């Protein structure tokens, strides 16, 4: 059958180009896409320098929100080290990223302790604290869970069970992605590179 440039062929070709463009606009995320499923970033808290901060303070930055506490020697450092490694790999682009480490243990996590803790990992990590109510509200907003456990020794030391997810917001404060401690550095890096470029 002879080849002919029929209008139908052109239509298919155009459709293919439009589809390709659509794919480029909706990147293949490696983390869980939560766009439209979680509310925009919103809070009113105190940072690890003792300054009042809100979501507007971080507008223009890609924000990673994580709930944790400083008396957490294993999983919280592991998560922060993962994020530190990713930020190192991003190079200059990481200046447009902020990690917000929200304490779920405000009675022990004073501003100075929080400051020493987060800066030991990476300068782009900020510690956030607030009233019990402000922390509870923020956790509820993102369906995060935390619960102080019964003291485990005479010194009164206690652990806090907490959600381990990392919530990723774009520069406009829209919730976009969800990472877990199981997400690889490469997956987080891949998606952050795209988000920072948007």
């Amino acid at each position, binding site marked *: 059958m002879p080849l002919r440039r029929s209008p139908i062929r052109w239509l298919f070709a155009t459709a293919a180009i439009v589809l390709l463009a659509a794919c480029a606009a909706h990147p293949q995320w490696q983390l869980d896409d939560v766009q439209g499923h979680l509310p925009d970033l919103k809070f009113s808290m105190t940072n690890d320098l003792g300054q009042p901060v809100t979501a507007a303070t971080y507008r223009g930055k890609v924000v990673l929100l994580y709930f944790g506490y400083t008396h957490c020697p294993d999983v919280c450092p592991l998560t*922060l080290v993962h994020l530190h490694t990713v930020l190192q790999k991003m190079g200059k682009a990481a200046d447009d990223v902020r990690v917000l480490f929200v304490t779920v243990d405000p009675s022990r996590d004073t501003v100075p302790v929080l400051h020493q803790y987060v800066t030991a990992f990476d300068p782009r990590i900020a510690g956030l604290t607030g009233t019990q109510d402000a922390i509870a509200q923020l956790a509820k907003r993102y369906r995060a869970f935390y619960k102080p456990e019964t003291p485990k020794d005479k010194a009164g030391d206690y652990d806090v069970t907490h959600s381990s997810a990392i919530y990723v917001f774009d520069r406009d404060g829209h919730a976009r992605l969800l990472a877990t401690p199981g997400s690889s550095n490469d997956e987080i890096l891949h998606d952050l590179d795209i988000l920072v470029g948007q």
Partner: protein
Amino acid sequence: MSFALHKMLHAAACAGLLASTAAGAAPSAPANIRVEHAWIRWLPANLPAAGYATIINDGDGMQRLTGASSADYASAMLHHSRLAQGDSTMEMVGHLDIPAHGSVKLAPGGYHLMLSHAAHPVKPGDKVPVTLRFADGTTLQVNFSVLPANAAPSG
């Protein structure tokens, strides 16, 4: 519950210590146990720190780790971090078995020694001696290297 476990562990350790003292000899080192990549993740503000290591058993019999202690920390407890339905939780562990001709890794996100209340400021670059206690009454002193908070060693 976990406190009771801790007490039991303590009692068991004391009993072991008493037994060896009664025998008139210092506790001996366990046969066929080696420890590699022993390190502590330093944290500021005298926060509890986690100790990690690979414990290798070259022997024909299982070895049971029952506890640890260090002159540099008031408390050294065996812990396990667990992720259940997206929640991260820590639990105390009474003992840890190292299988014959096998090894167990104390590694970030799993088993670790929780070292609390440092007797003096500990900093990256330090070596902290930690004594591991086994069920058969033997003990092994291991030097743990203190690494910075954001260290990500492969070992």
